[in-house]
């Protein structure tokens, strides 16, 4: 239907042409045209010029002036088509005509616009991302560096030579070979794109790290690369962070190996455990991922510790508190070790617990040393007790041997007596009773000796009657005191007062105090020692007082210091009061010299009930 314009019919031959075509008179009256023209100019009447956009008409010159040469121009038709219009004067038949061609460039133009927009967008992105770009002409080694590229290196774009040298002379010598290698690999088609990280000397002298990426962007018809374009990104900051991370990781490795500490992390939300390699070393495993952490832990920790430790761990996670546990493990190599583990909660900005960072130490040797120190302490306690008993031994031997002499004599007499003609049953009774009661007396002394002399280092604490604690000590010293004419009085109020203690140790402390008192009274005119036991402030209070006139003020401060003694050489080690204090403090009690007493008085306070456990 468009083939008909006021009776004019499109030339069927011309219809074969892809472009729109028309032949007009110089004033634009259509002579011939094809149907393509009608597609571009649907509103066409009999005059073509009248149907053309004004911007193109301006190029044709004044209306009526003859067209002397071919005029071309692009324009947008009212129909929306972008066209390249070409008007050529035709004069072959003598009468001047104009030949018109209209090439539809709508698609091409759109493509161009799109390309432009893309380039603009890229430029925007490059600039925004701090990317510099380069465009390398492989045929002459000219490189066009963009302003950002120059700026990145501290160069002025206007004065920067656009040559490959500009880049090459600035690349770090250690990185250059590798960079060219990567370039070559891409040019030779071995890589899909070029990528290299290298250092470049900034104009201010420092080295900056560059991520360099590029691609062949143009080849000649034979496929030979012509252009190589790419971008530069300054990744110094990342590189620095990476180095920092690396060095802090190295530091961590170093620290963990020096301090024999294992580092772990528990992600609370993910419920995921991570181990630093140091943890594997601690447990004697290799960090090769062949075994799960939970499995390693289960294998290493004994079943009776695994459950309580795990429970405690989850409780701490739940409560957001610090986790501290100590447990024995058996390493993969079979070694028995003791592990101390501490975990610290880390929170996010809102205070919500995020993870627990943990440290594990192998404290085997430390614990062994502590045990050794404790053993030695116990041994010295025991040794000192033995020394005290040794000093008492004379009295004790005397006290045992005298009744023994009674027993042997009475037994011998009994033997003689019953062989008489008329033995008197009453006399026999007297003899046997003496033997029996005297033997029992020896038994009591021996028991007290045994109680005080055996190694009690593994005895446990127990609630014990104060009377029982004093009994052995009093029994041991009584003969010695009697021989020295010292009067010993014991008063316990209330009589059934008990205390939570390791009885042998308290007996020892009392024995030491009694021993000191006895030594102090050797030359005294008045000789008595009193033990008063009472209750006050939830403590059992033992007061040991002797008839002495007190301790000189200048000695009071040093009383409890080990090896302090005023006794002659060989009479005492000076450890007695130090050991008393050690024992009292171990029991959660105290011992002091009572200054305001008119006589020499020591006061020891000991808890009646076990000290309450914290957090249980």
């Amino acid at each position: 239907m468009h083939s008909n314009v006021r009776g004019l019919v499109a030339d069927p031959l011309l219809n074969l042409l892809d472009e729109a075509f028309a032949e007009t008179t110089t004033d634009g009256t259509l002579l011939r045209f094809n149907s393509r023209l009608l597609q571009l100019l649907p509103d066409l009447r009999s005059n073509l010029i009248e149907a053309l956009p004004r911007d193109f008409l301006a190029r044709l010159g004044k209306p009526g002036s003859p067209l002397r040469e071919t005029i071309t121009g692009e324009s947008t038709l009212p129909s929306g088509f972008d066209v390249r219009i070409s008007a050529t004067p035709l004069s072959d038949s003598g009468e001047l005509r104009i030949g018109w061609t209209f090439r539809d460039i709508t698609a091409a133009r759109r493509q161009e616009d799109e390309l432009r927009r893309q380039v603009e967008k890229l430029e925007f992105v490059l600039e925004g991302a701090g990317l510099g770009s380069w465009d390398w002409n492989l045929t002459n080694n000219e490189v066009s560096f963009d302003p950002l590229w120059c700026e990145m290196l501290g160069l002025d774009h206007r004065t920067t030579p656009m040559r490959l040298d500009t880049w090459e002379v600035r690349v770090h010598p250690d990185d250059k070979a590798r960079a060219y290698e990567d370039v070559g690999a891409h040019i030779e088609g071995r890589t899909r794109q070029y990528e290299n990280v290298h250092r470049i000397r900034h104009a201010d002298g420092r080295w900056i790290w560059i991520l360099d990426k590029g691609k062949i962007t143009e080849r000649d018809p034979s496929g030979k690369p012509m252009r190589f374009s790419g971008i530069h990104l300054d990744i110094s900051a990342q590189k620095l962070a990476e180095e920092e991370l690396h060095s802090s990781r190295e530091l961590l490795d170093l620290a963990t190996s020096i301090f024999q500490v294992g580092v772990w992390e528990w992600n609370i939300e993910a419920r995921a455990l991570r181990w630093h390699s140091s943890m594997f070393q601690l447990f004697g495993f290799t960090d090769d991922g062949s075994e799960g952490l939970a499995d390693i832990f289960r294998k290493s920790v004994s079943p009776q510790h695994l459950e309580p430790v795990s429970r405690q761990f989850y409780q701490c996670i739940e409560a957001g508190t610090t986790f501290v546990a100590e447990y024995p493990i058996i390493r993969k190599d079979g070694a028995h070790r003791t592990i101390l583990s501490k975990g610290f909660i880390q929170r996010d900005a809102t205070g919500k617990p995020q993870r627990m960072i943990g440290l594990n130490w192998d404290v085997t040797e430390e614990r062994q040393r502590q045990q050794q120190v404790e053993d030695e302490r116990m041994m010295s306690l025991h040794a000192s007790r033995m020394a005290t008993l040794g000093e008492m031994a004379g009295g004790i031997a005397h006290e045992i041997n005298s009744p023994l002499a009674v027993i042997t004599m009475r037994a011998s007499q009994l033997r003689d007596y019953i062989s008489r003609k008329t033995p008197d049953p009453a006399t026999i009774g007297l003899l046997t009773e003496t033997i029996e009661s005297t033997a029992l007396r020896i038994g009591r002394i021996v028991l007290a000796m045994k109680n005080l002399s055996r190694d009690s280092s593994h005895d446990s604490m127990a609630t014990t009657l104060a009377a029982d604690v004093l009994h052995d000590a009093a029994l041991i010293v009584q003969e010695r005191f009697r021989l020295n004419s010292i009067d010993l009085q014991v008063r316990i109020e209330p009589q059934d007062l008990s205390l939570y203690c390791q009885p042998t140790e308290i007996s020892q402390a009392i024995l030491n105090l009694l021993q000191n008192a006895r030594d102090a009274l050797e030359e005294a005119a008045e000789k008595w020692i009193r033990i008063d036991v009472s209750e006050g402030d939830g403590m059992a209070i033992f007061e040991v007082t002797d008839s002495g006139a007190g301790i000189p003020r200048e000695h009071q401060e040093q009383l409890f210091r080990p090896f302090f003694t005023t006794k002659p050489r060989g009479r005492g080690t000076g450890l007695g009061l130090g050991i008393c204090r050690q024992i009292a403090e171990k029991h959660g009690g105290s011992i002091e010299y009572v200054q305001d007493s008119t006589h020499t008085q020591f006061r020891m306070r000991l808890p009646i009930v076990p000290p309450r456990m914290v957090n249980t």
Partner: protein
Amino acid sequence: MSGGQHTRAPSILVVDDEPALRSALAFDFELRDFRVFEAEHGKHAMEILEKVGDIDVVLTDVLMPVMGGVELLEGIRSAKFEQPGVVFLTGYSELTLEVAHDRGADAFFGKPFDRDTLIRTVDRLVLPPRERWKSPSPPGAGARRLVHAKVDSFASENAGFRLGHGGFFLSSDLAPGLHVRQELEIRIELDSLALEGVGRVVWSRTPAKNSELPAGAGVEWLSLSDRSMKVLLDELDIERLRPYIPLA
């Protein structure tokens, strides 16, 4: 020492702070018709000695309150009253047999002791020395060793031989290798004088590194020849010597 009259019953003072032991000892000596006195410590014993005056034997503990046995012995040996025999009965003390004899104790028993030996010792002590040493004692176990020595002095210190009132010290230079309880046939010569009799080794001493005391043995007389008894008691008057056997 001692040597009370034969006309009266012998007397004994038992000193011990252990009443049960005093009773047991008293029981025995009362049965043997002794006059028995008891004291609970040395001071009490001195009072009784002063009051009674003619105690033949004192049996005393060493460690006692108020006054111990060693102090009592000193008191007895320094006192004017007739000297009783002193027997130590000790349960435990620093005092050794050697020292006890040197201080003048005539016998020394550790508790517990053999009752028969104690009674024999007391019975012997209540006899006057001439009676005590007259009868040749029956040989004990083992053969007696012959000890013949020529000495320069009978009563000087560091002379290798020294008399006490019940025996003598003999250095190992003069008679090496003597051991405790060994019985000896003794002949000690000093110029023209000779002491002959039977003795028993009470203690033997090898020199300790820190001791200035010479090696040797303490020997007590069991019996003496009449001639020797006369020399010892009449000419040398050994009863006035404080040590039973000197330390050296």
